[in-house]
């Protein structure tokens, strides 16, 4: 019996023959590591880019989005737990979708991009890599929506075929990561830096959970770290928590908390800070950091105004606004 060690994520699961790793979907078959969900997504949708959310990457476009069963994190508040906390044979439905079929479907529906999302694409890494390679050759862009709990070497490799990443920074405290997600903070920070080093457009999301990670001092430390390590132009999205899965004992995040968090992050030096998962347009529009000109107005996932110039500049001061706009 040959055990294999999965080197994809920091868990470093040692998997006996015939068994699966912590993610439930990476298995040891005859001494070889296989992902049981390769070519078998269980969720396939076309979403607005703003839903990922990515605000500085092809705004207003539609993105072909897919995810498989399994995840290497086990967040108590997971919104997609029926997908992420199950193995490939435990979900209600799967689709047969080889990489070429995914690319053809995305192009056929007029999408410019493919998102690997819903569960963490780290656990269907090979499927992402093969699909993204074909997608890029076909003129599509690739978006990785992830909790960024991945080792540096495989991340550098997948970055070669990624155009944008949406990284989840769940909190700026290792104890929080251990308690809520069964993971650790340091590898996530390293991964976010790697995305930036590899030239992948990066936006960061932070789900603000009442009493657990809503401390403004911690949010300030997180924002300062982002300024220093990722750059002040990296967009940060504060997202509203709603009771889910195994965390139904806490209330939804008060909007005032999100407003205060946003003010704290802006004060710490970040230039593009947004609020998400709330009704209306509170904190969801892009404004020029220099002169306050409204650049992109949003309400929910809808673009209500776009005043950026064709080459992505503020129409008032002509400053270049960071992002992938074309």
């Amino acid at each position, binding site marked *: 019996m040959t055990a294999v060690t999965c080197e994809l994520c920091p868990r470093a699961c040692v998997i006996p023959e015939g068994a699966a790793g912590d993610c439930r979907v990476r298995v040891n078959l005859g001494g070889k590591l296989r992902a049981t969900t390769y070519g*078998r997504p*269980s*969720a*396939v*949708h*076309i979403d607005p880019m703003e*839903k*990922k959310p990515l605000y500085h990457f092809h705004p207003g476009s539609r993105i*072909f*989005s897919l*995810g498989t069963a399994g995840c290497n994190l086990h967040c108590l508040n997971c*919104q*997609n737990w029926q*997908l992420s906390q199950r193995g*490939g*044979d*435990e*979900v*209600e*439905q*799967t*689709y*047969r*979708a080889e990489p070429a*079929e*995914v690319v053809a*479907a995305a192009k056929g*529906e007029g999408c410019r991009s493919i*998102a690997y*999302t*819903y569960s963490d694409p780290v656990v269907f890494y090979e499927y992402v890599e093969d699909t993204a390679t074909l997608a890029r050759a076909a003129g599509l862009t690739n978006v990785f*929506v992830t909790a960024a709990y991945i080792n540096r070497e495989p991340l550098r490799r997948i970055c070669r075929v990624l155009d944008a990443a*949406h990284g989840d920074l769940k909190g700026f405290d290792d104890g929080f990561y251990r308690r809520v997600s069964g993971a650790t903070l340091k590898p996530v920070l390293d991964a976010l830096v790697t995305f930036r080093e590899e030239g992948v457009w990066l936006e960061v999301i932070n789900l603000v959970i009442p009493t657990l990670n809503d401390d403004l001092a911690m949010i300030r430390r997180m924002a300062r770290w982002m300024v220093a390590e990722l750059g002040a132009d990296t967009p940060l999205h504060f997202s509203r928590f709603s009771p889910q899965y195994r965390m139904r004992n806490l209330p939804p995040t008060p909007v005032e908390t999100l407003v205060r968090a946003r003010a704290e992050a802006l004060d710490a030096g970040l230039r593009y800070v947004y609020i998400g998962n709330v009704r209306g347009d509170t904190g969801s529009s892009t404004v020029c950091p220099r002169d306050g000109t409204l650049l992109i107005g949003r309400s929910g996932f809808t673009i209500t105004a776009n005043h950026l110039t064709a080459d992505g500049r503020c129409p008032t001061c002509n400053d270049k606004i960071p992002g992938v706009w074309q």
Partner: protein
Amino acid sequence: MSDGREPQAGAVVARRRFLGLLGALLGGLGVTLGTTSGATRQPEADVPRERPLKEADFYRPHDLAG
């Protein structure tokens, strides 16, 4: 004095016994049929339904995050 309720109470008891027996018989039959039919249905329910991608409704509303 005679108690007019005695015969009536006896009839109620008899009816309850009859209905109880009938219920037990029907219940047992239901359990048997359910178990038998479940033996053929169960594997289908356990195995995820796998469809070709072309059958997916990409625009179906959903509440998945991300």
